């Protein structure tokens, strides 16, 4: 029924057109029209992305729902879209989180509501574009274009230091990304085209591979973010409005990791193999050291931000241990464990960190402070909220039964197969993660009511319950039954690993 309908183009352009429509609706000062227009466009986009999951052919690793038309003919740049098992879950994550963010900002945003909603919708279209672009320049256009709405979101609706945070965010990620552009142009000389699929088949010498690897590394490491280029993230998260933090954590960070798995690993596998120790080291530093940094935070959002960086360390670890696993065991099935674990962790982290930021947003809207010291005993006045927040916190820790467990467990298993010490260090994250998360929960949620402000809190309203309830459902479903998620990515991951372990020199 849906054959011939350009689903990917719809998923990209419908939110962008919706954003423009919202801007025009906002010109007439009717806030309700703005909200409902935005919500309708977001929900319709989400509905259009569902067939990507249901109608996906799980046995095939090749790109599906492909659209390829010439775009900039003088340079042979095509408007080339397509998805495989790795992109589909990310696209669904994007469309779903945008719906939730729009609902979350319903009454909270009073200033320039139309521009707020439009920015998120346009950003949704651009982010979906990143995940399904198969032409390197098209990918780059979406990758960079997405910085514009995020820059405006943090700067217009953010906290006191928002200007510093947003300019830092923009310049830091822009600097990383321009090296990606140089690498793409350099790859074009080596291969003669901008088509990513042709890059996979190209043979490139080792020196060229190492240069391209570092150029990609700069771009993706800043986005993930990896230690030591992570310093933009705590500022951006803390100063962004709730919706901005959610999209930043849930989706933008995944784009960096997606870049590793779509570009670095398949295009320059030899360089990745010889430099895997570098990425593994940086990932383990992120997992262990950043977790310790999270332990000493006094600001709720900063704590969750550092927790995000720590969890993304797992993701990059899972991607780069494949070489060690393959060297020790010789088959790609065990290596697949690491990669699939990382991909599941990406989706789970999207839900969990998004949910944690929404929880912080809920209590911030009531208390107007993010300092842990100002809280205590929230459970007494907001029991429903407290139970949801505790479940999200336990998912953040990686409790079995929640989605956080699945990804982390697979990556740790894979790390043990690669090298005992990798596994040991990765597993310490479970302890540290539990430490900072549960201590935060203890200080904020549990205990006696700390002060009059906490005593005056009201529990979740229906809108907030809807948003958080949806996320709880997803966290539990993926935690208890991750098979559909792992199924869809299996063929693509197997193919990726076959490409990765082949030498391209």
């Amino acid at each position, binding site marked *: 029924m849906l054959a011939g309908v350009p689903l990917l183009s719809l998923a990209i352009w419908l939110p962008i057109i919706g954003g423009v429509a919202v801007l025009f609706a906002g010109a007439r000062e009717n806030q309700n029209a703005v909200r409902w227009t935005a919500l309708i466009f977001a929900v319709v986009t989400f509905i259009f992305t569902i067939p990507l999951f249901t109608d996906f052919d799980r046995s095939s690793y090749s790109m599906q729902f492909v659209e390829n038309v010439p*775009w*900039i*003919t*003088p*340079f042979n740049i095509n408007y080339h879209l397509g998805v495989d098992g790795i992109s589909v879950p990310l696209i669904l994550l994007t469309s779903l989180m945008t719906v939730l963010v729009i609902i979350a900002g319903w009454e909270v945003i009073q200033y*320039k509501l139309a*521009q707020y909603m439009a920015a998120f919708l346009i950003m949704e279209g651009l982010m979906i574009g990143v995940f399904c672009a198969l032409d390197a*320049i098209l990918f*780059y*256009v*979406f990758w*960079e*274009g997405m*910085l*514009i709405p995020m*820059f*405006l979101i943090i*700067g*217009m609706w953010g906290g006191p230091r*928002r*200007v510093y945070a*947003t*300019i830092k965010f*923009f*310049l830091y990620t*822009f*600097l990383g990304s*321009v*090296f990606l*552009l*140089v690498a793409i*142009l*350099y790859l*074009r*000389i080596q291969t003669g085209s901008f088509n990513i699929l042709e890059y996979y088949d190209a043979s490139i010498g080792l020196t060229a591979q190492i240069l391209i690897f570092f150029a990609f590394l700069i771009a993706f490491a800043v986005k993930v973010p990896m230690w030591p280029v992570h310093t933009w993230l705590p500022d951006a998260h803390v100063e962004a409005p709730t919706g901005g933090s959610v999209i930043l954590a849930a989706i933008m960070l995944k784009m960096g990791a997606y870049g590793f798995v779509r570009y670095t690993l398949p295009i320059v596998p030899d360089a990745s193999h010889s430099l895997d120790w570098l990425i593994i080291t940086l990932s383990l530093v992120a997992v262990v050291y950043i977790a310790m940094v999270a332990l000493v935070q006094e600001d709720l959002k900063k704590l969750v931000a550092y927790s995000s960086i720590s969890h993304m360390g797992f993701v990059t670890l899972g991607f780069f241990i494949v070489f060690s696993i393959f060297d020790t065991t010789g088959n790609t099935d065990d290596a697949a464990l690491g990669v699939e674990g990382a991909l599941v962790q990406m989706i789970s982290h999207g839900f969990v960190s998004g949910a944690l930021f929404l929880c912080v947003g809920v209590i911030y809207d009531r208390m107007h402070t993010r300092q842990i010291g100002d809280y205590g005993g929230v459970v007494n006045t907001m029991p429903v909220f407290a139970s949801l927040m505790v479940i999200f916190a336990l998912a953040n820790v990686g409790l079995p039964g929640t989605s956080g467990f699945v990804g982390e467990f697979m990556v740790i298993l894979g790390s043990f197969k690669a090298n005992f010490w990798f596994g040991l260090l990765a597993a310490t994250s479970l302890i540290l993660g539990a430490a900072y998360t549960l201590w935060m929960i203890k200080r904020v949620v549990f205990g006696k009511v700390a002060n009059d402000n906490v005593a005056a809190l009201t529990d979740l309203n229906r809108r907030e319950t809807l948003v958080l309830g949806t996320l709880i459902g997803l966290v539990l479903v993926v935690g208890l039954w991750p098979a559909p998620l792992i199924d869809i990515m299996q063929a693509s991951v197997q193919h990726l690993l076959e490409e990765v372990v082949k030498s391209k020199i």
Partner: protein
Amino acid sequence: MDLGFELPNFMTALPEIFVLVMACVVLIVDLYLTDQRRTITYHLSLATLTGAALLTVLTSGGGAALTFSDTFINDNMARVLKLFIYLITAVVFVYSRDYLVERQLFKGEYFVLGLFGVLGMMVMVSAHSFLTVYLGLELLSLCLYAMVALQRDSVNASEAAMKYFVLGALSSGILLYGMSMFYGATGTLDLSALRGAIAGSSHNLVLVFGVAFIIVGLAFKLGAVPFHMWIPDVYHGAPTSVTLYISTVPKIAAFAMTIRLLADGMQGLHDQWQHMLVILAVLSMIIGNIVAIAQSNIKRMLAYSTIAHVGFLLLGVLTGTGEGYAASMFYVIVYALMSMGGFGMIILLSRAGFEADRLEDFKGLNQRSPWFAAMMLILMFSMAGVPPTVGFYAKLSVLKAVIDVHMVWIAVIAVIMSVIGAYYYLRVIKLMYFDAAEDSTPLQASADMRLVMSANGLAILLLGILPGPLMGVCAVALGAGH
């Protein structure tokens, strides 16, 4: 009857003849007009540009045509660049009208000088001989010096005009000296004959010196470091409508002059002038971007950003390949459109007695006028080179040309400088969107100004979504055959 000389084919130069005639007509008609009826001059000038555009399109059949003893050429590059010159000059006139009226500068001289400047640019663009290049250059330059000085009660403008005149005369002299060295070494002023003569001879020291002097002259006109000193002062001191004119169209003509001299004439000496252009380009990108950060006056900031853009422009030229020249042509056209929009926005925010040329004047524009704040947003991101605006594709083209000749280190410097440069563009956006408005008076601009400004901003965005056609035109004009 044998006249003793051949009559040139005037049809090839029909647009130029038309503009010359119409400029004289406008001059004379304006003498008989009172100030209230000055809009006739304005409309006549716009009609001149439209007519010239029509004639250019009508004479565009066939390939390159030479006339006036092979000193004048009408090829694809000339036609395309002339069409953009007409378009941008017309928009400059539209933007300038209210500004000039409010400051009692709405005199016929502005339009007459503008049209003669256009004529000079057309001659530069169609030059096929050293003499024609110089002729067009001087015609353009003298008009520009006079236009800068038009606001005779302004101390800043007079100072800017003096600086421009003295430095411009000096650099024209240096350019002429370089040309004379070439004449001395090769015996010809014709660019095709020159090309042949250089290809034949070995690398003659006289030719190298000649190239150096010519590049000095070109660098001054373009505004490349270290010959850029006049740009901030002239852009700042001149009335904004004149700055609008200076920063947009003469750059196209300067680019054309560069291509005619270096690519058409001196391609054989490419190794020599490539090194010189590398130095100019790298220094321009570095200094232009870094010094712009320190500016508090937006006209000076845009002036330094111009210097940085010229650096990028030279990247395409220095490659010496047809692809590089086409990339630079695309860049200069895109730059002219962006610069037109940037200075146009300053004019939009200005009103009688108030020049909106400080950065603070843009504060809170999102609250005063969200639509024009969005237009400025598009222009600023385009200048920074952020997709999906057309400025990104301009940078992509030159970077691609540079990387294709394996000069990757220059591309790396270029991208790092463009990130540094992004800061001052972000600062303007920050002022518009993140700061509260200090001055809440509504924008006073006429309907046609608002319409054209909106079209300008939207064009930058639409060309960013579909840059292919314009890039294709540039590739056809310059790609093959070099």
